[in-house]
């Protein structure tokens, strides 16, 4: 391609945007609206997934040690556990609760009238235990199995049913969200490409004249491709900045409303912006270039 041809294609592409101002405005408007709807829903889904995952991961197991273990041996168990890399990969923290502390906690929760432990007098029937925080709930069963095999462990208590339920909820929510996002994306690309088709259709006579004076398909196509590309780029950038602002508002609102519940918070703006920008640009380009190429192809048949 000659240099003056390339510059002509770019000039014509950009000129086309201004010459057909209303259609260009409509195309950019539709791109922005579709990307915003799709983006907002995706971010909502992402945040929901993150919240459920945090709830799910906020799990602990209780590792009850053998009653024959002395206090020193119980402390040594903690030291040994910290050195066990296979288990520690999925352990956030392990906190020792001595039998005395356990009794204190238990007694604090139970009505003294009905506290059967008081009958034991100074002979505390409870055992030393470790409160172990699990990192990945999906690997919880494996970690429990490994903990049970450790010497000195009497029993490991865990609420696997809650973990499983949360996992199922998360899977269902993810599937529904993914499905909706795919549908929204398909609808968005369809609407955007149709708007661009409409803009191109508006210029079918110009294309007919170009064909009649001997323009090759490449020559006709390029300015339209560049125009579609520019419209897609413009729409993506405008949508991105609007989405950024909207997300800020959403995160602030969430913090004000439920700021005291640690599991319910919006993902950090910085963590989600880059993927959003990438997806918006990709969708904008696909719709912009795809819409114009497909439409021109129809007019280039003869």
């Amino acid at each position, binding site marked *: 391609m000659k240099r003056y041809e390339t510059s002509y294609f770019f000039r014509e592409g950009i000129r086309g945007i201004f010459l057909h101002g209303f259609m260009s405005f409509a195309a950019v408007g539709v791109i922005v609206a579709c990307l915003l709807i799709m983006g907002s829903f995706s971010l909502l889904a992402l945040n929901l997934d993150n919240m459920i995952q945090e709830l799910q991961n906020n799990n602990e197991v209780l590792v009850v040690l053998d009653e024959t273990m002395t206090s020193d041996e119980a402390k040594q168990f903690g030291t040994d556990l910290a050195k066990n890399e296979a288990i520690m990969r999925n352990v956030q923290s392990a906190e020792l609760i001595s039998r005395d502390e356990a009794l204190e906690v238990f007694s604090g929760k139970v009505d003294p009238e009905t506290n059967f432990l008081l009958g034991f007098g100074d002979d505390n029937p409870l055992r030393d235990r470790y409160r172990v925080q699990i990192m990945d709930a999906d690997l919880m069963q494996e970690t429990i199995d490994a903990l049970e095999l450790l010497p000195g462990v009497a029993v490991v208590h865990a609420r696997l049913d809650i973990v499983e339920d949360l996992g199922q909820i998360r899977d269902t929510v993810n599937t529904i969200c993914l499905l909706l996002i795919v549908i929204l994306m398909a609808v968005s690309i369809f609407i955007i490409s149709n708007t661009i088709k409409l803009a191109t259709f508006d210029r079918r006579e110009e294309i007919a*004249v170009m064909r*009649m004076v*001997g*323009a090759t398909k490449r020559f006709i196509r390029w300015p339209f491709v560049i125009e579609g590309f520019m419209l897609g780029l413009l729409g993506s950038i405008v949508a991105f900045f609007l989405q950024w602002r909207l997300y800020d508002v959403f995160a602030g609102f969430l913090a004000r409303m439920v700021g005291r519940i640690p599991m319910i918070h919006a993902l950090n703006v910085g963590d989600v912006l880059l993927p959003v920008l990438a997806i918006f640009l990709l969708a904008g380009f696909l719709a912009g270039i795809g819409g114009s190429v497909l439409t021109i192809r129809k007019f280039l048949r003869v």
Partner: protein
Amino acid sequence: MVRMIDVYKAYPNGTRALKGVSLQIEDGEFSFLVGPSGSGKSTIIKLLTGEIKPTEGRVLINGYNVNAVRQKDIPFLRRTLGVIFQDFRLVEKKSVYENVAFAMRVVGSSPREIKIRVPYVLDLVGLSHKARRRPAELSGGEQQRVSIARALINNPKMIIADEPTGNLDPARSLEIMMLLERINALGTTVLAVTHEKELVNRFSKRVIAIDGGRVIGDRTGGYYQYEAIRN
């Protein structure tokens, strides 16, 4: 040069537009193609510009065999032609200069070549002073002259004018025909399709008459002689 040898054209809807048309137009000739509506004139133009292919027979134009021309070569066939339409077909959003210049860009001319050639051709059609105007700001006759300038700009071997005066008053029509005659005098073959008898009768040129998809006459002289054949 144009050669049509025993050409038949049937459209998918069953219409048989041409039924064995044979004709030859030499380089540098000025010919009128006349005939009533539905006689097959438009089909001949479509065949010559490579828009359609014949059902039977052969169509040769400026070294291209329309029967066998590949899709990607059609733009190059069209570059040997300059086509003028009744409705001008100018790009409304481009100026007179741009409408003419863009036909040069299409064939890959450099900006320098365009800068030299466009003013020359606009001068030839008498529109130098209106180069910056938009088509909507011009009269019908002026718009047709822009269309002629665009057809001429790439120095085609042949100009095909499809009812070039259909939208013009008699004085402007005569002006356009005289301009085409002048272009022909400079060596370009001209084929003017028309059904304006008075206009054809004012020029003593070759007249190819077509009716019902057949050539019913081909000789130099006025339109009137074919009316006698038809009646």
